[in-house]
């Protein structure tokens, strides 16, 4: 421990002696660079603290671009699903138009098919004819 302290002390002494003999231009440039580095550090820390939304946007951008293929596949699937739904609905529309026009024009009215009383009466009639 004491050895370390001693070495540190000697290094500092040597550096301080070097500092006395350093060129003024070099010294000024070193100082300017140090100030600039400190300023940049303050700015980036402040940005991270204050602009949470921007950070989230950056993260979202990263997630989107790194998963672009998956997202494209999902979009293609969604378009396919919507297209299938549309196609099925249109097909059903045509089928219903055909059935409904025949059903509405038939001799037997639509109410005959949905009248539960008639249904029960038919069932009873068919039961009695079987007995």
């Amino acid at each position: 421990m004491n050895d370390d302290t001693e070495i540190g002390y000697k290094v500092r002494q040597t550096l301080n002696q070097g500092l006395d003999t350093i060129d003024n231009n070099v010294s000024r440039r070193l100082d300017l660079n140090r100030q600039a580095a400190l300023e940049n550090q303050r700015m980036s820390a402040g940005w991270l603290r204050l602009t949470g939304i921007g950070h989230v946007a950056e993260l979202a951008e990263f997630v989107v671009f790194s998963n672009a293929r998956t997202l494209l596949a999902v979009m293609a699937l969604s378009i396919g699903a919507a297209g299938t739904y549309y196609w099925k609905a249109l097909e059903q529309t045509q089928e219903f138009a055909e059935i409904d026009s025949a059903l509405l024009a038939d001799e037997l009215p639509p109410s005959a098919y949905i009248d539960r009383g008639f249904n029960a009466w038919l069932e009873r009639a068919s039961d009695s004819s079987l007995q």
Partner: protein
Amino acid sequence: MARARFRLILAVALWLVAPLGQAGITPPLAQPSWSQLSKEQKQILAPLANEWDKMDGFRRKKWLGISKRYGSMKSDEKARMQRRMTDWAKLSPDDRKRARDKYKSLQKASPETKDAVRKKWQEYNALPESEKKRLKAEAALKKASLASKSKKSAPTTSAIIGKHSTPSVSTEQTAPQ
């Protein structure tokens, strides 16, 4: 690892929202309003004049399809159709589905059976109103007891696919009616 998790989350989310997407994101089918119909179409679809603009695109398209077939019908068929249009449009999607299913199965029956059903309908109509009410109440009771039986019993395969335990969600709720 993170990408795999992202994909899994995305897949689950999509699976959950897929039905909503189909029903909600799909744009409505553009069909003419009542004022945009031709004079002939208005004449055929006159019983639906008040309902037309409230109908969705798929229903309008269906009725336009019916109006196309109207021209090739006999005069008595035309009269019957126009007389029944309003009541038909007011039925619930489930009732319309039931009527269509029964109509389709009757079409497969022999001409003798069809004649017999027509005669029975006439006979049924001649019954006193009290008798009709009694028959309807009897049918409702039977339906309720069948429903409670299917609820009490364990959900076997036959119960799940059986007509009494099948949820009454009609395909028409997302499609033309």
